[in-house]
């Protein structure tokens, strides 16, 4: 996953119904860009049948009692 460009952000914001100027789009790109880069190793790698609700299953799972190092 690559960070969106200011031009792409301007188009996305227009579609969202909250248009922004070119200057604001550039600022947004710089601001949110690191989040895209940080998530890049995960993006596009998730299994087909993974649902967001697995979070609730993980919350309720019993933790194995193996010894820590």
């Amino acid at each position, binding site marked *: 996953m690559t960070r969106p460009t200011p031009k792409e952000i301007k188009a996305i914001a227009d579609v969202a119904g*909250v248009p922004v100027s070119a200057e604001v789009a550039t600022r947004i790109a710089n601001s949110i860009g690191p989040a895209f880069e940080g998530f890049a190793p995960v993006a596009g790698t998730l299994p087909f049948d993974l649902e967001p609700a697995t979070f609730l299953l993980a919350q309720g799972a019993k933790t194995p009692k193996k010894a820590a190092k």
Partner: protein
Amino acid sequence: MNIHQISTEPALLSLTAIAQAIAAKRVSSREVTQSCLDRIAQWQPRLNAFMAIEAEQALASADAADAALAKGKVGGALHGVPLAHKDMYYDAGKVVTCGSKIRRDFVATTTSTALQRLKDAGTIRLGSLQMSEFAYGPTGHNSHYGPVHNPWAIDHVTGGSSSGSGSAVAARLTFAALGSDTGGSIRMPAHFCGVTGLKTTVGRISRAGAMPLSQSLDTVGPLARSAEDCALLMALMAGADPEDPTAVTGPVPDYNAAVQRSMKGLTIGVPTAFYVDDLDAEVARILDETIAVFKREGAHIVQVELPDQRQFTAACQLVLAVEAAAFHKRWMIERPQDYGPQVLMRLQNGLAVPGVSYLEAMRWRGPALAAYLAAVAGVDAVIAPVAPVAAPTIAESDVGNSPDAEAVIQRLTRFTRPVNYLGLPSLAIPTGFTASGLPVGMQLIGRSFDEATLLRIGAAFQRATDFHDRIPELA
């Protein structure tokens, strides 16, 4: 606690102690409320911690509580105890600004479940506490109502977004306060102001009637003077709520019993990376000293290798940006000029995240939590700094909507965001002071819904230390 303390300044006692003193009629609710109001009058001009002060109503409520007690009618565990909370908890008939211009005149028609449960326990209202605009800021700046000041050093930040809660609890203006934590907003003020703050597990406390920022990440929790006081509040607030289907329906542990136990036999993990990287020297020193206390108190210390926390931070940022923008979209269209520049800037970030990217971040949350829990198997809690530095000055962290604003925010919230993404509980406790007198806190990160163990460790630590008992002096 002694009679002299009660007769001179009841506001200095803990929540637990003052509730017991009122119930035993050693002090009246009016005396306690007046003590808090006296301190508020002294400190508020310096701190700007309160959004609204309701002295007359508070005293009238205190008189009613005293009259009821005289007739043998005890309202609950906190009968007659005056409190103030972050100004985002709906209280029917009261203005709830959410720290914003947009909601400057918003009058709530319902009362939040968390607040109602505290009212049912007998608390009375002192007023409301300042906060970052719409809870979207980690420093305590607010372009509409001015910054909240740190009672330990007036020119330093309190941390946000529960800025007034941290400042007011530290200065002993209220015995405790509700905060909220979506990206670190309870733990940051607890760390910077030297108080105890509990970020709860997502689902532990009802969010009904609490201003939303991010439905996946928002949590309700207390800031107080001790882990024992947090336990008292948790016992009253936690549990299922028909008004909030995301509040879990399972049993609520006995938090008040948990804080009576020692930390002997518990295992505390120390991360090998990330949370120990690039720390200010004094924060690093205090982390080592805290671990030494844990050892002395009987905890077993082990090193833990955690999954890459930077990816959790990034995922958190994507989720938060989108959900916050969605909540605010209407006002972003209709009233953009009424937001502070930094808050509008951060809300606009959410516009840039495609739906697929947002859902990827949400889908990964389950495996990410499972991986984290596997890494800490056998560990009761992980110790980590809340932030790599003590409180910066208000001036140096006043970045507004400058190009590097998000970088500053990310640096301050580096150690808090992963916990929010994973939905885990985390207790911030005061663990020391810098040479210049600024408090430094550490967070104990637990397993989902295991706040009781965190409170147990925190209370045991506080029986062995006095950092939480220190009180800032009015300069």
